[in-house]
């Protein structure tokens, strides 16, 4: 596979190194002179000096071939978004992935059609949420393309769902239970599964249905 990695900071250089060790062909683009010189020692002619949002720089990196993958992983969200748009809309690169530095910019990436994004801050926050759940509901996975998310809930003894069968729960439309973890063992949630105190429940739902699901399962 041929990949262009735009941005030679910690993220870009480590990803480039990994891709190279997996046997892929890589060109990394870095616009800062001092960083470029430093990278050259390791990456030699696989790193290019320039602004990856300039078309002639992308062309020198071989964007017209086109590569199978372009990563916009600079420290600037606007740059990453534009790099991905130029690659996917201008050169039909089949797969583009953007780094989101400021989680508040995520909505812009979604709106402008850059669906594959990675946000370290959001990931760390997700882990924090997992360790310190705030409203009893932990978001485990965002399935953006499907417009679904997978969440985890812990059933308290005073939950209104305790003692009820899954079929008897008034789950909101667009939400479904996946599994129940009880005494260290997980089983798929069937209609006949009875909810018990201490259960850890996985559910899949449409974003925005969290409150309704919480009301049914947690009270």
């Amino acid at each position: 596979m041929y990949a262009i990695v735009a941005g030679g900071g910690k993220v870009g250089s480590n990803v480039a190194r990994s891709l190279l060790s997996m046997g892929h062909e890589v060109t990394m683009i870095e616009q800062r002179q001092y960083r470029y010189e430093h990278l050259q020692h390791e990456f030699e002619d696989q790193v290019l000096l320039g602004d990856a949002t300039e078309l002639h720089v992308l062309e020198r990196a071989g964007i017209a071939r086109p590569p199978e993958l372009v990563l916009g992983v600079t420290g600037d969200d606007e740059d990453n978004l534009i790099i991905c748009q130029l690659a996917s809309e201008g050169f039909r690169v089949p797969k583009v992935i953007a780094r989101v530095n400021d989680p508040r910019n995520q909505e812009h990436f979604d709106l402008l059609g850059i669906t594959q994004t990675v946000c370290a801050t959001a990931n760390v926050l997700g882990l924090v949420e997992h360790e310190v759940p705030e409203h009893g509901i932990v978001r485990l996975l965002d399935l953006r393309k499907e417009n679904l998310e997978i969440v985890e809930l812990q059933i308290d003894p005073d939950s209104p769902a305790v003692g009820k069968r899954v079929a008897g729960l008034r789950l909101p439309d667009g939400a479904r239970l996946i599994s129940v973890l009880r005494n260290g063992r997980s089983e798929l949630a069937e209609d006949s599964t009875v909810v018990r105190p201490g259960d850890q429940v996985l559910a899949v739902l449409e974003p925005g249905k969290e409150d309704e699901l919480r009301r049914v399962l947690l009270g």
Partner: protein
Amino acid sequence: MKLVVIGCGRVGSAVARDLAEDGWDVTAVDEQEEALTRLGDRWPGGFVVGHGMDADILKQAGVPDADAVVVATNGDNTNLVIAQVVEKRWAVPCVVVRVLDPARAKFYAARGMRTICPTQTAISALSEAVRREAAVRA
């Protein structure tokens, strides 16, 4: 008619003043509070301090019901992203965006954006001036 100008530097502030004089209801947005001084002592319009990538700031400036938005911060990519967000999210009927890099200006113009490229204007004017001068001497 309501206009929001995002980026109140030399260009943005002059456009804001120009159209305010024409009678537009203008609000300018800039990260720097000092940018307000560029609008003159008796600025009749609004001014919001904040970044154009911040949707709340754009709402505060009245972008959702603006008739026109001019995007002229000092970053090409920032301008291109803000202009697309304004068009897609709020369907503002007239969005004009300054892009200094001719290649990017052309790329996004081909996708239907109203890009203004001062660099391209300078290139054309300079070449044309030389051609005219040479033709006179020939």
